[in-house]
């Protein structure tokens, strides 16, 4: 029928917490691409990790007639008001990757469970370290609560093992260069660390660079999070021990498809769809590609 026609009239907004990090760029672009392939006009909004800016984006999107919003929230609590604002305007919101703390604000939330993901990384960490040894942790943006979700998930496991001592916990802003510099200094203070857990893959790569220039590559195990291309490769090469693979592609596409179904009249969406984070190690790395599974 004239479906494609009335799709033309419908616009879908993709509001993403930041584009300063390839992982989110990928998430946003996949979502936009999928929605586009389903015949919708789409646009990406960059909230720059600023919930206030996200609010502006919501207002502007609503005012300029977007009919659905695929959201990657900046903050679980802060974004609630925004989602509710959209809901009030009768616009469905589909959360990707990060959740908003509200039972029924969003039409559906397709979530990557950072917490349990980092729990898995923690478990593997313990096993790889044989339950003992000194290690360091690189946090992301200390002002960003997702940083803490991952850190907490990790520690919820690791802290049970008295043999594992965290000798340094420093912030590196999810930034590769910063991570490298911080790691260089940590290695000075604690030449004897045997592992480092990084809040994301960019920092893992930075930490690895630091290890190289300190001649410690291979002697210190690096653990990351996300599943970025370079890291998947590094795991193959045995440079990086493990990472928590998230599935931005799956989440983004599901969200886009849901939006499409919503327009087609479907309403009974599952409130939450957890997309589990999978542990990628040298053993199983061959099954994975950047941000996803081989198929």
């Amino acid at each position, binding site marked *: 029928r004239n479906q494609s026609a009335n799709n033309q009239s419908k616009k879908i907004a993709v509001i993403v917490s930041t*584009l300063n990090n390839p992982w989110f760029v990928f998430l946003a672009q996949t979502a936009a691409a999928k929605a586009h392939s389903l015949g919708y*006009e789409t*646009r*990406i*909004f*960059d909230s720059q*990790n*600023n*919930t*206030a800016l996200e*609010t*502006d*984006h919501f*207002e*502007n*999107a609503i*005012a*300029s*007639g977007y009919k659905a919003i695929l959201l990657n929230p*900046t*903050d679980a*609590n*802060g974004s*609630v*008001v*925004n989602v509710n604002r959209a809901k009030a305007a009768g616009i469905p919101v589909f959360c990707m990757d990060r959740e908003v*703390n509200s039972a029924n604000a969003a039409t559906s939330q397709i979530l990557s469970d950072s917490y349990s993901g980092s729990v898995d990384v923690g478990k593997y960490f313990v096993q790889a370290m044989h339950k003992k040894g000194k290690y360091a942790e690189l946090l992301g*943006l*200390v*002002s*960003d*609560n997702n*940083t*803490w979700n991952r850190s907490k998930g990790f520690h919820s496991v690791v802290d049970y093992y008295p043999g594992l001592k965290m000798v340094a916990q420093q912030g590196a802003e999810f930034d590769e260069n910063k991570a490298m510099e911080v790691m260089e200094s940590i290695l000075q203070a604690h030449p004897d660390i045997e592992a480092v857990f990084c809040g994301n893959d960019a920092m893992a790569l930075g930490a690895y660079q630091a290890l190289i220039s300190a001649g410690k590559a291979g002697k210190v195990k690096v653990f990351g999070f996300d599943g970025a291309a370079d890291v998947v490769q590094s795991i193959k090469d045995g440079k990086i021990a493990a990472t928590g693979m998230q599935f931005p592609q799956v989440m983004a596409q599901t969200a886009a498809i849901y939006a499409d179904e919503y327009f087609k009249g479907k309403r009974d969406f599952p409130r939450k769809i957890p997309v589990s984070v999978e542990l990628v190690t040298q053993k199983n790395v061959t099954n994975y590609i950047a941000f996803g599974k081989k198929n």
Partner: protein
Amino acid sequence: MSSNKYRAYLIKFQPLIALIVLCVVLSILSDKFLTADNGWNVMRQISVNICIAVGMTLVVLTSGIDLSVGSVLALCGAITAGLLKNGIEIPSNNLFIGFTVLGAIVMGLLVGSIIGAANGYTITRFKVPPFVATLAMLTIARGLTMLYTKGFPISVLGDNFAQIGTGWFIGIPVPVWISVIVVLAAVAVTSKTPLGRYIYAIGGNENAARLSGININRVKIIVYSMAGALAAVGGMIVTSRLDSAQPNAGISYELDAIAAVVIGGTSLSGGRGSIWGTVLGAVIIGVLNNGLVLLNVSPFWQQVVKGLVILLAVIIDKANSKND
């Protein structure tokens, strides 16, 4: 009309040209632009920047600058939210102090002006260049925010508080009311009080001002604490709009504020400029952000376009101003 009035007039209204051009273009390109809803959105969105930029204008007029406003906004927002939510607890002698919405807000504004005064003090007492003093404060205040919030947002602050950011009053959003009041007050101060004259005089020629018996340090400290307080006001609006205080709120807001000030035709070397100009500057930036969305410009291109337009706006200013 005397050359000076004429000049003041120019400074006040050059940016208008840029703004009008912008609006015309936008309303041609998008039918959504000139709608009431959108209008209110833009005004609500710029209200925060206006509060900050007005304070910045006062500082810049004394040939200073305040880079700490963004962090101050975050800190004051967090403190108000914290006091509202948890009050002050002193477990040792299990004492608990609760706060009313008003009380919490007052505290927030107080902290803002104290930090501002601290800026003013280091600048006047130790002759630290404003750029450095406030740059240091930018880092310090951000750190304090982290310490206070432990890196987590403080959320769900109650409907009364939410009114500040989201409520309406006689058909106009409350944040807009706030910014209007701030602007009018600032205009009155700059143009109708001795303090205003002193601000311009200090920016124009500090030596001569001193020899005219003006207490430079006092004026500067007042001005910086005003800037701090206004940043705090911005903090209240942001926090209330989100019903949550974000520890990383207000990052790089100082740049938007300064951009507004300069687009408004205020000279960064001090002594010349006006609040009205700044308001126009802020509106231009707000309309621009809004327009780029309406026109569905991709976020990457957006930055490029935004930069170019800001540049253009200032160039138009200069072209029309007879001075220099």
